[in-house]
């Protein structure tokens, strides 16, 4: 019976009902997409570094695990010394550069050494770097920027030509010759990071211990340790950003439901008086209104899930390099937040409705 009353009330004002549900849907979708984007981009970046195939990473002292924010590069010869150590199969020095124009990380590589660690690029079209102005782009970058072999690409205020389009997942989306990177960055024979492949992954710990003795101030870590660092917990700013966005979304949802239910009880003052004249208790009145808010929240949450999934797919088509990771756990948190916000938003109007004097309510026009 109460469900009939709630449904008929919601359908009586379809626009208001739809707007309230939409607000909840936006709240849920926003939480899932924002968190999904930050986690997705972070995980994607980590996976690409893992995809290089190295077992150990060596970075200069004071380096950030975010490769785009490395410290001053160190001599490439360090890599030669690393290659001499036991159980080391190959070392690939890489000079990283950050292209602020399109916020992309560029790897300056030596093709031979990089191929030895990675096992070689998989080419979709074109071939390896040959000339100083050559650039390799991964398929995701190529799709996002609509480039093909031979096209011009401007990076670091310099013109490059696409030599090849490679399968994604090997550290960066853009690869230029190391010598060119050195010229553009004004350094000589320097590297920002050394990717080290062991003769067997089981030797990684031994290699790390050896490297630390040999280079005590350098940041040496296994690829496993690197992957464990690439979480939002190690990026307080990201957690803060996510927290702010989630908080904003919750406040929006709360406010829309609050206003919606407030106008609802104002409009239905006489109906509340009628229910009271029939003997409905304060608890009954509160329960009806909170259940109505719950229905709004439930439909809004489902719509939010659908909207977030559809948005993720649409964004993947329009911006292929954007990785949005929608997870069940965050879908659950977003739903919980929406329910809590809706119930809180409806509580004050429900409480007010329950306190209405039945005689005044019945006389309300």
């Amino acid at each position, binding site marked *: *019976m*109460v469900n*009939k*009353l709630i449904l*008929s*009330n919601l*359908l*009586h004002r379809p626009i208001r009902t739809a707007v309230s549900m939409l607000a909840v849907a936006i709240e849920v979708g926003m939480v899932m997409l924002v968190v999904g984007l930050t986690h997705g981009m972070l995980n994607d970046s980590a996976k690409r570094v893992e995809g290089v195939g190295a077992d150990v990473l060596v970075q200069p002292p004071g380096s950030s695990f975010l490769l785009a924010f490395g410290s001053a590069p160190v001599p490439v010869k360090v890599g030669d010394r690393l290659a001499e150590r036991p159980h080391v199969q190959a070392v690939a020095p890489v000079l990283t550069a950050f292209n602020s124009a399109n916020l992309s990380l560029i790897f300056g590589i030596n093709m031979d050494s990089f191929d030895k660690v990675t096992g070689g690029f998989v080419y979709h079209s074109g071939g390896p770097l040959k000339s100083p102005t050559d650039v390799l782009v991964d398929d995701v970058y190529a799709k996002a920027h609509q480039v093909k072999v031979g096209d011009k690409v401007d990076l670091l205020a310099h013109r490059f030509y696409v030599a090849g389009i490679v399968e994604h997942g090997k550290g960066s989306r853009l690869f230029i010759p190391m010598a060119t990177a050195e010229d553009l960055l004004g350094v000589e024979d320097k590297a920002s990071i050394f990717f080290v492949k062991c003769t067997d992954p089981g030797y990684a710990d031994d290699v790390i211990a050896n490297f630390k003795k040999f280079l005590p101030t350098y940041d040496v870590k296994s690829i496993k340790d690197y992957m464990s660092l690439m979480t939002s917990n190690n990026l307080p700013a990201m957690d803060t950003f996510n927290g702010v966005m989630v908080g904003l979304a919750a406040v929006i949802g709360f406010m829309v439901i609050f206003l919606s239910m407030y106008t609802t009880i104002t409009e239905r003052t*006489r*109906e509340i*008086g*009628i*229910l*009271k*004249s*029939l*003997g*409905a*208790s*304060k608890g*009954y009145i509160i329960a009806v209104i909170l259940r109505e808010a719950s229905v709004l929240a439930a439909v809004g949450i489902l719509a939010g899930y659908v909207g977030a999934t559809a948005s993720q797919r649409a964004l993947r088509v329009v911006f292929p390099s954007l990785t949005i990771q929608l997870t069940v756990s965050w879908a659950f948190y977003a739903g919980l937040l929406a329910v809590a916000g809706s119930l809180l938003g409806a509580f004050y109007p429900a409480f007010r409705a329950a306190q209405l*004097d*039945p*005689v005044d309510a*019945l006389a309300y026009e």
Partner: protein
Amino acid sequence: MEPIISTNSLRKVYRVGKVDVSALRGVDLLVQEGEFVAVVGPSGCGKSTLLHVLGGLTSPTSGKVLVDGNDFLAMTDADRTRFRRHKIGFVFQRYNLLPTLTARDNIAIAQHIQGNGFNPHRFESIAGMLGIQEKLNHRPFALSGGEQQRVAIARAVICEPKILLADEPTGNLDTENSQVVLTMLRELNRTFRQTILMITHNPEAAAVADRTIRMRDGRIVSD
């Protein structure tokens, strides 16, 4: 036999802004079970306030109010609400049906609020007696005034209240529909010995009752 309604020096004072308004100034009233009583008087004489106090919609300020043996002055709002749910039925001048529900659901919601569940036999019996079977799936906007009032009466009596309080039940109806509604109330009183207290301006409506009480300025002036 104990009267079903008994008031002694009943007073009700409303605070309107900074002014105290005495709506009831010492009402002594006795109503026996099964009586059909009409309360008449000019506007502002306190008829509706008396009804609201006897129905537990508002609390008395002072005096004694016993309804079916329950002292309203000693009861909290929650107690009076509980009492009203089981013992009182209301019929209003403006019908006061829930506009988004059908006639059937408007009646059924009274049983739902009471908490005794839907009683189909009682429902069919009341609907048949009031002649609204064909209109049960209509919402109020699709019903005439007379039909709406009959639905309101059905809602008021579906839970077998001890007392039916009717506030100007024919006030918004034409003569023909007024007659139908008054006949229904009379029938309820005669067939089920339903105690009815009806407020009316209409002397013809008052004539249907067993007894007429006149009020003026918050007091009973004749009985």
